[in-house]
């Protein structure tokens, strides 16, 4: 029985990106700025986005021929970990995943949208038509020059210049590249996302599409499947960063709040769960970095799949554990909107579902490990 590789390594380039990300996120995303954006329509700061574009982060995994840096996503998961730590939310994750889907399609029709993304266009993939992340079947279809269908939970749909819509055409999977501007407001319905740092929409699509918008090819189902797994890894990295600042917030409170004449952090009923959160974070980090080491720009290996399932399962549980206990351990304060614990708990609830919940990932993992 083989549980997959346990190697991790880091390159100079990764270390530089990690340092740059930590510095930039700390500078751009103080907790006051995070809170200021919660109630805004956009949910992110356009200037911040521009900084990310200027750093070249939108094109990191895009091939050099299309204006990117040609890295593998594994080499920059720490950017998302840093963004999670500072609760910095932008359309970067959606955009990176859209680029990943385009690149993995290996079709020449993907070159133009890839170049646009490398140049700073925002993009997203409309993965879902229901609540079921594990259902790859599609109702959306291309027929007589029209794209018809409903997509739900489309992350950053309002901000996206390009929306990649998986659909069927004569029974075959295609990816339709839709310009955001071609979808009117009447076709969009904003979700009220529990993680208020994020934005998503449901889309009722009934659009004219031209042949040049449609990416066709044999490898699309696999490309889409792999992109979902990479999405799971990026969410795992981001939520691991968030779990770190969540635990730090809790620990700061345990070190300052006194009850019955003692700092509450001296009570083992609070101390020991804090240690278990720390250990869960350490597990999540190890699994995220290991999965990152298994990533490549080719087809994902069996070990890469194993690692992504493990990382998403563990990281989802870790942030929920950390967020849930953060609220409880803040006592009465924890019940208020003003307390930052709620930001992490709401993030945790979003994380559970994004790209598949922990049980779903373990189910797929079990198939890979026990049935092969």
């Amino acid at each position, binding site marked *: 029985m083989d549980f997959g590789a346990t190697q991790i390594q880091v390159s100079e380039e990764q270390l530089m990106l990690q340092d740059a990300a930590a510095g930039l996120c700390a500078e751009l995303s103080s907790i006051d700025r995070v809170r200021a954006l919660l109630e805004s329509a956009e949910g992110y700061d356009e200037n911040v986005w521009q900084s990310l574009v200027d750093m070249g982060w939108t094109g990191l995994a895009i091939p050099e021929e299309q204006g990117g840096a040609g890295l593998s996503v594994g080499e920059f998961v720490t950017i998302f970990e840093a963004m999670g730590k500072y609760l910095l939310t932008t359309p970067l994750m959606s955009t990176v995943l859209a680029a990943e889907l385009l690149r993995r399609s290996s079709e020449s029709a993907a070159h133009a949208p890839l170049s646009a993304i490398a140049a700073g266009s925002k993009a997203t993939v409309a993965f879902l038509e229901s609540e079921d992340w594990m259902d790859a079947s599609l109702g959306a279809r291309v027929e007589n020059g029209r794209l018809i269908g409903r997509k739900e939970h489309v992350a950053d749909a309002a901000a996206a210049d390009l929306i990649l819509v998986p659909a069927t055409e004569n029974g075959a999977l295609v990816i339709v590249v839709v310009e955001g501007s071609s979808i009117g407001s009447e076709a969009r319905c904003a979700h009220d996302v529990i993680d208020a740092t994020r934005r998503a929409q449901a889309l009722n699509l009934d659009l004219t599409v031209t042949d040049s918008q449609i990416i066709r090819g044999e490898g699309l189902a696999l490309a889409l499947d792999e992109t979902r797994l990479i999405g799971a890894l990026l969410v795992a990295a981001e939520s691991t960063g968030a779990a770190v600042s969540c635990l730090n917030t809790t620990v700061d409170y345990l070190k300052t709040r006194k009850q019955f004449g003692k700092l509450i952090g001296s009570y*083992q009923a609070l101390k020991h769960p804090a*240690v278990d959160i720390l250990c869960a974070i350490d597990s999540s980090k190890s699994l995220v*970095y290991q999965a990152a080491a298994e990533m490549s720009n080719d087809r994902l290996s069996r070990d890469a799949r194993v690692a992504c399932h493990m990382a998403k399962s563990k990281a989802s549980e870790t942030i929920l554990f950390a967020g849930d206990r953060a609220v409880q351990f803040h006592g009465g304060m924890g019940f208020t909107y003003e307390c930052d614990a709620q930001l992490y708990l709401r993030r945790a609830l979003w994380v559970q579902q994004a790209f598949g919940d922990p049980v779903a990932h373990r189910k797929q993992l079990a198939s890979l490990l026990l049935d092969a």
Partner: protein
Amino acid sequence: MATEQQLANFREEVAGWLQANKPADPGFLLPQSFMEVGSEQQLDFLREWQYKLWSAGYLGMAWASEYGGQGAEPIFQSIANKEMARAGVPIAFNVIGLGWAGPLINDLGTPEEKSKYLKGILTGEDIWCQGFSEPDHGSDLGSAQCRAVRDGDEYVINGTKIWTTMGNYAKYMILLARTNPDAERKYDGLSFFLSPMQVPGIDPQPIRKLTGEYGFTQTYFNDARIPASCLMGEEGQGWLLAMKTLQYERGAEAGAAGGLSFIRIALEDMIESLQGIKRGGEPVLKDPVVRDELMQLVIEDKALSVGDKRSVISALTHDYRGSLPLSNKYRWTEHARRMRQAAVRLQGAHGSLYVKDEQAVGGGFWQRAYLQSFSATIGGGTSQVQANIIAEHVLGLPK
């Protein structure tokens, strides 16, 4: 520095030797760990095996050759240990010597102490035990009360130690005793002895463990006289030396002479052991609830293995410096306990059987392993004490 090629060649050599020399099943229950040596039969068998390992050059490789070692780079020992685990050979049973007392003497001992003690540890001739815990002072080692009073060229020892692994077979003990009961800090009143065991007034009484087996003693000291030269370092340095010893005990293999202290009890084998078990007419391994539990264990197993590798990459440990080494014992031992408990729970009705029953799965291996797992979650500082240490040292929480 050895080249990759040299290491690969060495790995092949060890694997080959182990394959050729792995002892046959002796027909009696062998210990899963060094804490279960409970009969002369087991002792003779394990002593012979350890001598064979040492003669072949696979123990004490990093120790100096004048003391029975080879002065090799520690990586060679680490490779040999991994191959022993992989080959499933018996343990190198003299663990207190090989892993704790030996490294301590090797690092901090005088030349006389090194010449006197190290080689016998490697050959298995001199069995070592540890006298740290006391009946009233388990995890709170600093409060140890066993007294050592200087009388001319001797110390007179009075008190009781407990959980003395192989206390009834040992020739020497690393002994923590109080030389100054009036010291301002309780820690400063402790001293450290390399004490002989075959002395009038030292009486090790075997303790029967929850597994039904033996392996420990409660050791009584009644006006036992030991030479003053047994004092290691100076009076009052006992706490320092005991903490150093615990570092060897809790750390992976730093400075250790090598060999296995525990036979490898891997999650892969646990899942394998469930192959024939049915639930509702279907293989238990097809049950979705069981699969989910197993995957949780697999994920933690993998996280722990990767964590051991991550702990040496400083850029990937920036958020909580020191957390991985400090939580290593806590996490691995708790994981082992949960995994072995699941192994028993998932056997169906056979999970209620024990080692003498012919129908017990794998001879009751997992039952015994689960009960035994508490030795690691309790010994060397309980998990709860470990959690306090981690909370205070890594998270900075108040005492």
